[in-house]
């Protein structure tokens, strides 16, 4: 099996050119999302969905970007993508087995198996996967599975002119990312941190295969601060359910015993 692959998206290197969005759509032949002027900075595709598998967020932030400026304004860009979580809610909730983990450690939807039930959608803590209005099936980033099979890197990483999107072996990416954060800290950007780089930092997903370097709170980038894959709660849910069931059973039994006693007593009264 090939080594686990992933993305490290360094938002401090992103110039918001959207080449990743276009390269993704072209390679995967995805339709447009409609032509909607949102008035939200330069973001007119708004969020990830069945036809947008890379999405660049534009954040006009009323805060300075150190050490660039003292002025309380900065413009942040971040190219969002499916996180290919170590514990993937979509995969674990898929009843048909359409969603699998492939040899690159990526979470992959097999379109010929997907029946469009939609369980995966509610089980993704990031709102990544979505059903196509057209055929009802669920679609998301494939980590360019077809390209990886041919020893090509994903289209978005290939198109990125500034190496904001780095693709490679997950372990190497994690090492590089850690070094990058430390370098930024010494360069006067103490706010830089990694989002979802491993299980320790994000237990709710047990770590992301596509993790990020951010400069502000996750919410600023429209990312959840503490994502938890719903299926992670299954065990706890079953335990509480079992406990609940046991409690009910116990109560029932107790009541029966009491009932017997009482009955006995009552029969005595009769």
């Amino acid at each position: 099996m090939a080594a686990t692959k992933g993305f490290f998206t360094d938002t401090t290197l992103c110039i918001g050119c959207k080449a990743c969005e276009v390269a993704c759509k072209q390679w995967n032949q995805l339709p447009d999302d409609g032509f909607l002027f949102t008035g939200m900075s330069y973001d007119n595709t708004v969020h990830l969905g069945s036809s947008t598998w890379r999405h660049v967020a534009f954040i006009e932030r009323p805060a300075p970007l150190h050490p660039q400026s003292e002025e309380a304004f900065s413009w942040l860009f971040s190219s969002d993508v499916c996180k290919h979580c170590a514990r993937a809610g979509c995969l674990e909730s898929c009843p048909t087995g359409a969603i699998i983990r492939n040899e690159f450690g990526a979470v992959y939807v097999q379109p010929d198996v997907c029946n469009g039930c939609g369980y995966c959608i509610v089980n993704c803590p990031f709102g990544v996967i979505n059903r196509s209005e057209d055929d009802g099936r669920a679609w998301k980033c494939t980590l360019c599975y077809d390209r990886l099979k041919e020893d090509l890197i994903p289209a978005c990483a290939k198109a990125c002119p500034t190496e904001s999107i780095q693709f490679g072996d997950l372990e190497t990416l994690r090492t590089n990312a850690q070094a990058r954060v430390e370098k930024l800290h010494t360069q006067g950007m103490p706010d830089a941190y990694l989002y979802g780089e491993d299980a320790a930092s994000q237990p709710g997903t047990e770590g992301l295969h596509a993790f990020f370097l951010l400069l502000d709170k996750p919410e600023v980038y429209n990312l959840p601060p503490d994502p938890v894959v719903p299926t992670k709660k299954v065990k706890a849910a079953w335990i509480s359910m079992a406990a609940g069931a046991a409690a009910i059973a116990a109560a029932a039994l107790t009541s029966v015993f009491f009932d017997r006693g009482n009955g006995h007593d009552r029969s005595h009264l009769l």
Partner: protein
Amino acid sequence: MGTSFGRGGATTFPGDLVNSDVIIIQGSNMAECHPVAFRWVMQARERGATIIYVDPRFTRTSAVANIHVPIRAGSDVAFLGGVIHYILENERYFRDYVVQYTNAPAIITSEFKDTEDLEGLFSGWEKKKGEYHKRTWMYEGVDPEAAAGARESKAGKKGEAIQRKPIQAERIDPTLQHPRCVFQILKRHYARYTPEMVEETCGVPKHLFLKVAEALCRNSGRERTGAFVYAVGWTQHSNGVQYIRSAAIIQLLLGNMGRPGGGIMALRGHASIQGSTDIPTLYNLLPGYLPMPHSKHDKDYQTYIKLNQPPSGWWGEFNKYFVSLMKAYFGQAATKANGWCFDYLPTLTGDHSHMNTVTEMADGVVKGYFIMGENPVVGSMNGPLQRKGLRQLEWLVVRDFQLTETADFWREAPEISRGEVKPQDIATEVFFFPAASHTEKNGSFTNTQRLLQWHHKAVEPRGDARSELDFMFKLGQRLKLLYRNEYNRKRNWPIRDLTWDYPVEGPLSEPSAEAVLREINGFTIRDGKTLGGYTELEDDGSTACGCWIYSGCYRGGINQTARRKPYWEQNHIAPEWAWAWPDNRRILYNRASADPQGKPWSERKRLIWWDEAQSKWVGGDTPDFIATRPPSYRPSREARGKETISGDDPFIMQADGKGWIYVPTGLQDGPLPTHYEAQESVVKNPLYGQQCNPERMEWMRKDNPYHQPYNDPRFPYVITTYRLTEHHTAGGMSRWLSWLSELQPEMFCEVSPELASEVGLKNGGWATIRTMRAEIEARVLVTRRMKPLKIKGRTVHQIGLPYHWASKGLVRGDAANELIGFVGDPNVAIQESKVLTGMIVAGRKSKERRFITSGPFYKSLPGREKDRDLPAARRKPTTGHGHKAEQTKEGNV
């Protein structure tokens, strides 16, 4: 660039920006418009370089720059003049470099008067003619005529004679103390460009300006270098050439030219724009910057050579380049006896630049028009006037991917939807040809760094789509066929004798692009051997070469432009990646990377140096110098041509081998950059009585009305136009593509929250923007990226308008260029589109009115009713050219 250094091309390449210690990006939104080249800037930043970005708007470049400086559109010369002042005042210039490699020590004639003496004019202003007589700008003791620079700017404008004595400053003062030496003139010229004046003129706070000036100076000198990056944000002004000249002066003073991490990176707007001037689509040039003959002066071959071949500098070889070009054009027919068919060439009768051609169309002078890969109705100034011109044509040919607004001007236009123009009244016959895209044809791009890069055909073009090469080749064949029975008439001989015999290939029988490139490279007539470079060209008719500066691109019979060895398999200069003109030199004037004795100024910044043992220049790049000329070489008085280039003169294309801080000849509007306001400004020129560039080109016509030069109460806001990453210029390549269209789906305007509240604009709502020419509507994007500026206590608002949309395609909107009038720079006739004034109101109030067809929709102001129909500016001596500037001046006195 041509007048300052000798060649009108970027002096470096984007990959070398990695070596810069400071990069100033001004007049270019590099991250948005050149995102791929911007990777090198990002790498430089990561290596610790300071990235400074000067722009009216906070853009995607600002977002990643170290310092962003918001500036009032159109005030860059004042800002850069302030930097020059700072360098001189604080003695931060690189003295050895300045004394040895620039014309700073040269002494100028005693008759020269500066703008400081004449309220914003230089000596020699002829009010009646509306232009300068440039005699007084010359070096003392030198005949005041011409130089290499003249060739690249307005060649042929007046057929200026090139003198036959070498241009060398006759008197110099290496101590830089003489009151009339260039250095002292420079000091006086910029004496008032203080940080306070910069604040007052540009709206840039003093502390921010000083931060920039200090960062630039700190990162220049022996050990460190800085680069400038610009694009059309500098060129598209009525004094655009002087914007670039300002940067040239700074780079010469700081010693940043010809060195790694230095130079001036001119970013070209799209693929092969550099190529379109090298092998020009310009009316006044032949390939390789040879001037087009002028009907009045260049009577015959001998006269043409006499007038254009200077005795000193590299252009002394002019004859070889010209004769070889004629051999490429006319083959056997071109002989010494017939002056190499000189009289076959068309000759210039005047200024036939774009805006003049359009007005001549509108006036019924020009009858037919070819448009290939352009959408002028959307992409060029004054859309209504463009369409008026098209309506008067007899025929129009458009070649494009899509039926653009230009091709469909007769069916879809604002004046047609208003019923003011009826399609049935338009007699123009329109021919539309579908064009092949770059993946459907072989060929080369000459990109921003003078780099010829070959692209191979991936698929055959679909349907009737064909390449431009195929179209032109077959058009030529048909012309030959049509004229074949009339070859006895002499006027048809150029068509008869034109060599037009390229081999065809492929299923569509297309001409071989490689064969064309081989002809451009040049070959020997006798045995057809490809030439190794332009030094092998001869003036006896034994060589043919389609473009002398490209000679060598097919060296050894190999397509050098198709080489693709990545830089990580060679050095960062990557000489084996494609091929750059001239002679595969990547950093121009690189002789200046070494000191006069030939040693690198510093180890850290070494590039080429003189190797005594090998007796030649060696190093990482191809030397932009005579490879075997030692630093100690000095020419004799009798020397001519390239023999006049001294061993320590790095600027070999210049007549005197020096970088020109001061341009004694070759520019129309002055030897030193001077701050003038744009044709339409919101402020009075804070520096001089002279408001605008006195030499600017104006078109005083009814169909091209102007606002008041400043303080026009009807148009209180500054407008600037630009591109976005998501679309391509006039949209022909992007508005029909869903993946690009969804990213920027509608025309919008960018305004500050302050302006929005002043006018009542709502984010996501609508606005109407008006000028005298037109009114358009746009969606509103309120953003803090637009920042109002404080100018003398007054708030100046700027409105940003991208110009990609129009009435066709997947996504639509009004075209920003409908708003802009014709105004031009006098040196290169480029339009002023980066700054104008206008009005904005909330809501969809546009009735799609256009001045030309709807009549005036603004009341004229007292004293301004008399705008008359006047001939185009090229006949300006008899018109009131520049009259507003004069009025302004009188008003100020």
